[in-house]
């Protein structure tokens, strides 16, 4: 009977093209808007750390003075970063910040490129499970004794070395020679959770160099630097010794025990720093001045999904419900117009259930068509967002799951809207219409 109902539904849709088109339009616009906002929300709220979300932790210290900032900063000072790096209790830890350098090779035919660069420790690659195509990260000794080594992306490797294994070769970063120790595969976590402050939806860096080079090379900071008191910054050393915060610090803590142990260590660290005149917020105890956040919390604390986006999702669902009410009205009109036909069908043997099923198949078909058109709307809206409002590319890709979810939402919407009209029409008393016809 299902195929019979499908055939009847298709005929009915074709018989009243204008009304059907209005319904498809109502569903598709509602679905298009909902899917657009849902897609943006889903992309923004995705946790790329997956099952390692609890294991990867950001360390935050309340190094600001009394009556200054009222929340933990996502960054820390160079002094703290260096001290935390030197703590041997942790298996994996990485200080990191973003800079920018011009990259070129020996080959004069390949033009230099100005690249965003991640300055970090070797554990960064382990903590964030960065996949390697060739070679690996630099040796552990490089984190202690600076060496001009670099890890580059597959894309840069293709540009500079035609995709061949470039490990051992030299590239120049701001005209200084760096030896390539590894080439990573395409890796671009979205949101860019290891540094959401510098554009949560920016692409990942394609060059990685040792953090130990920072003091020596005086890398510019391509990111946020925040201070809570006036400090003259005449030299790079002033920056390194200042209370300005600009470095993220990540660790890997496998279980709750490790977390507690590390928090205790951090508390002792703060107590020790207080004796040296730092961590001057006397309103808080040392244990209140330390925080470790797993990825989920980190993303939330950094407002990767702004409140506005959540409100927008709510509004779009509200809009969809308005569309649903409109469809309900249109369906009621359409179905009641066919009550005489229902009367005939009921008279010659159709049960209420069969009539109800027939009309539910019809609304499902309208919903499905609306869903497909809605997907096109969503695709068009996302493209327009990218084109006219410079929304980040990563946010406008229609998530694969949406291609399946959208028709389901559309069909569900249509079915919800269709239940009442189908129920009304299936309860038609055949005798009322048989004589009237």
């Amino acid at each position, binding site marked *: 009977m299902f195929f019979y109902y499908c055939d009847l539904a298709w005929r009915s849709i074709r018989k009243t093209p204008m009304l059907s088109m209005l319904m498809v339009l109502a569903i598709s616009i509602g679905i298009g808007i909902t899917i657009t906002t849902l897609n943006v929300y889903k992309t923004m709220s995705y946790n790329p750390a997956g099952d390692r979300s609890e294991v990867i932790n950001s360390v935050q210290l309340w190094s600001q003075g009394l009556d200054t900032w009222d929340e933990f900063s996502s960054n820390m000072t160079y002094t703290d970063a260096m001290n935390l790096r030197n703590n041997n209790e942790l298996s994996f830890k990485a200080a990191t910040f973003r800079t920018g350098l011009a990259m070129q090779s020996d080959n004069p035919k390949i033009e230099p490129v100005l690249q965003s660069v991640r300055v970090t420790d070797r554990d960064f690659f382990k903590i964030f499970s960065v996949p390697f195509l060739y070679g690996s990260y630099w040796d552990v000794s490089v984190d202690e004794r600076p060496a001009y080594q670099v890890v580059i992306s597959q894309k840069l490797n293709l540009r500079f070395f035609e995709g061949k294994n470039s490990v051992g070769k030299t590239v120049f970063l701001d005209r200084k020679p760096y030896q390539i120790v590894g080439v990573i595969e395409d890796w671009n976590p979205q949101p860019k959770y290891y540094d959401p402050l510098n554009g949560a939806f920016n692409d990942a860096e394609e060059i990685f160099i040792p953090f130990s080079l920072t003091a020596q090379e005086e890398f510019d900071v391509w990111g946020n630097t925040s201070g809570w008191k006036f400090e003259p910054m005449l030299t790079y050393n002033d920056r390194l010794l200042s209370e300005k915060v600009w470095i993220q610090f990540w660790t890997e803590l496998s279980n709750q025990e490790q977390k507690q142990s590390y928090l205790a260590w951090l508390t002792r660290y703060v107590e020790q720093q207080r004796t040296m005149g730092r961590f001057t917020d006397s309103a808080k105890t040392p244990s209140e001045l330390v925080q470790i956040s797993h990825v989920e919390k980190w993303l939330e604390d950094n407002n990767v999904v702004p409140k506005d986006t959540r409100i927008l999702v709510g509004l779009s669902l509200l809009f969809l419900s308005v569309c649903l009410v409109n469809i309900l009205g249109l369906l009621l009109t359409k179905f009641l117009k066919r009550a005489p*036909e229902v009367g*005939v069908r*009921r*008279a*010659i043997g159709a049960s*209420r259930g069969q009539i109800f099923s027939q009309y539910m198949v019809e609304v499902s078909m309208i919903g499905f068509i609306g869903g497909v058109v809605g997907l096109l709307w969503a695709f068009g809206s996302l493209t327009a967002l990218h084109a006219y409002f410079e929304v980040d590319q990563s946010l406008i890709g229609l998530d694969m799951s949406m291609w399946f979810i959208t028709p389901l939402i559309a069909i569900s919407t249509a079915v919800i809207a269709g239940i009442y009209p189908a129920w009304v029409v299936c309860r038609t*008393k*055949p005798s009322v219409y*048989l*004589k009237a016809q």
Partner: protein
Amino acid sequence: MLSMKNINKVFKTDLVETHALRDFNLEVNEGEFVAVTGPSGSGKTTFLNIAGLLEGFTTGEFSLDGVNVSNLSDNHSAKVRNEKIGFIFQGFNLIPDLNLAENVEVPLRYRGMNASERKRRVESALEQVGLGARMKHLPTQLSGGQQQRVAIARALAGEPRFLLADEPTGNLDSLMARQVMELLENINQQGTTIIMVTHDPELARRAQRNIQIVDGQVCDFSMYQPAATGTR
């Protein structure tokens, strides 16, 4: 075959109670051709709707084929209508979007019959009413008489035990009415019980039995004194 005992049908509104049938009694035997006549508003259509399980009744007893059908569920009523009863209406009541074959096929679909059996029955029914060559035509492409023949074919395709016809010739001219009537007589001769509501006394006379409904009751002809006979 059809037995109605003391059937009452009352339509109620907030202000008025209308007795469409009162203490209605009727027995129809298998193979009979019964014509039901009566003035407008006498309850003919209400009787037919109850007989066809399209409507319930207020009190009384109704059995069909020896089975009490007074309190059937909606599903069960639909099944009985589909399997035992064929309907023919004054307005033909064909589904305009479906061609003739598809129209005739509708009750068989609801019976869950397989495609080959449906095809056989549809062809046979349309052949029987003389429209075998026009299976792909739409109802709007046919005359009134032809449309009524399609409606008859639709009723016949289900091989019903009895046919209920409500003014089957009411919308037809006399020639076409005669043709439809001949068709119904043929069907009856093949064993199908027919109950036909009509206003036309000439058609009523062609039936084997004639009952008249007045004010929701079957008129008792035993009390009727055929005074006019004596003056002829």
